[in-house]
């Protein structure tokens, strides 16, 4: 497999996004899958591979009426879809299947037809984290941050700037849930959730989904949309327990996935025109910028606060508004991928000029997993 051998030829989100009380989780998978098939001009019988997370692939394949020859149910949290893209490129290259559909659907807000959330008490998390009052990501994903702030002398004001800048991008996007401009003082006076994290530093909770269709680049030119080529990919996992993360100031999974993606694509950081970094919380773009090597350790917050990633900046980041302001169903990685595809196609609401190479970086769990995808507008 060489860079650019596989392309994304279909991409779409659910018809509605945000609060969708009239649709169950499995239907959210189907809604975006049907939209992506229309986008690619494909019939059900054209698809012979399925990958998804949140629902097992059996459920989605049966519900849609697919007969897959290749199935991937990798479920490592919100970046599962980056891993699906990576696995699908390998599968198509190996001849296991020809055309793969990847779906995400999650009734994160309305909780219709969704699975219960709980930590089994006999697991290591159940024994060694759950008894100490953790309640979802806001109480776990955030724990490393005071150590990061102290290590690098980063301020809460700089952390707040991540949310401010992303709201500027969201304001350009009609489908973003939050579009009102906010200031650093708005962020720092929003409701305290888990010190030092306030409400505006935490992602939204929404309903929605997205789907991608991948096939061989040799066929991609026959599709109605401009193909988006997969240049390189990377993946890794670390620990399911935030307390056992090796380094509280840097994600090992980010570093491993990012390095593989850059190496396999052959790109340099200076080649990157557009960047997505999964932002479940305000610190993630900071860790991502550093762990992917765009800036040095401890420099990510200042880089964002100095508006390098803002509209007009040299490295446009999270241009849909991100999980903080666009949407966040629970497993947001699919929406980061969708925005990267739109930017490379040239069809994004807040379109960055002439995006040739784009990097899309996802996190799963609480720094537990990671996937990185490099996309481009040409094959090599």
């Amino acid at each position, binding site marked *: 497999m060489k860079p650019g051998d596989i392309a994304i030829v279909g991409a779409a989100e659910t018809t509605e996004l945000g609060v969708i009380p009239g649709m169950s989780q499995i239907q959210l998978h189907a809604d975006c899958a049907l939209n992506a098939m229309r986008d690619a001009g494909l019939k059900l019988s054209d698809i012979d591979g399925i990958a998804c997370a949140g629902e097992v692939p059996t459920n989605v394949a049966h519900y849609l009426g697919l007969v897959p020859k290749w199935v991937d149910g990798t479920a490592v949290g919100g970046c599962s879809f980056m891993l699906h893209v990576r696995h699908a490129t390998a599968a198509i290259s190996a001849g296991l299947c020809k055309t793969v559909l990847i779906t995400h659907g999650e009734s994160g807000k309305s909780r219709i037809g969704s699975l219960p959330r709980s930590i089994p008490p006999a697991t290591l998390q159940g*024994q060694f984290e*759950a*008894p*100490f*009052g953790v309640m979802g990501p806001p109480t776990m994903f955030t*724990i490393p941050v005071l150590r990061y702030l102290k290590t690098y002398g980063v301020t809460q004001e700089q952390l707040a700037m991540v949310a401010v800048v992303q709201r500027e991008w969201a304001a350009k996007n009609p489908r973003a849930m939050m579009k009102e401009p906010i200031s650093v003082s708005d962020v720092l006076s929003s409701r305290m959730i888990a010190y030092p*994290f306030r409400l505006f530093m935490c992602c939204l909770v929404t309903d929605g989904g997205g789907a991608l269709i991948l096939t061989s680049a040799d066929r991609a030119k026959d599709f109605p949309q401009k193909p988006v080529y997969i240049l390189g990919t990377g993946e890794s996992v670390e620990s399911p327990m935030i307390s*056992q993360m090796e380094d509280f100031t840097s994600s090992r999974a980010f570093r491993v996935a990012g390095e593989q993606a850059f190496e396999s694509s052959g790109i340099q950081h200076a080649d990157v025109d557009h960047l997505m970094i999964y932002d479940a919380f305000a610190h993630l773009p900071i860790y991502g910028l550093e762990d992917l090597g765009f800036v040095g350790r401890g420099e990510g917050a200042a880089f964002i606060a100095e508006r390098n990633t803002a509209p007009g900046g040299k490295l446009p980041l999270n241009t849909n508004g991100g999980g903080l302001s666009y949407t966040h169903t629970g497993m947001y990685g699919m929406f980061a991928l969708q925005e990267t595809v739109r930017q490379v196609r040239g069809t994004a609401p807040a379109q960055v000029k002439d995006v040739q190479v784009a990097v899309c970086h996802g996190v799963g769990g609480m720094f537990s997993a990671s996937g990185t995808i490099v996309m481009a507008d040409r094959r090599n």
Partner: protein
Amino acid sequence: MTERPLPAITPETRHFWEGACSGELRLQKCTACAHVYFPPRPFCPKCASRDVSVVRASGRASLYSYVIHHRAVPGFTPPYSIAVVQLEEGPRMMTNIVEVAQTPEALQLDMPLEVVFEPMSEEISLPLFRPARTAA
């Protein structure tokens, strides 16, 4: 107020929870490479040796990082700290910091701490940490 979720003990973790009930913080140490580790498992996560032993930790630690949670959770009165402490022997673990104000001013990173065990049931005492009263 309903109670906080309690661990369900597994064969590999029984020594830890039995130790906690008797007032001991127990870690494991690899005989082959001397690595001290947590959470429990009957082999060394550094060198894969099965030749490991249970060791008693000093109970001394420092505050590595934390959040102060402001929302209601069964078994807790907000605001309360959810912390990760750095044990003197090397491993880190999640806990709550107790017997101190739950404020950023009172909870300073790297402050010395010591373990206290909070009995929750016949089988479970939870290791919590408070500001150290004795010099390290």
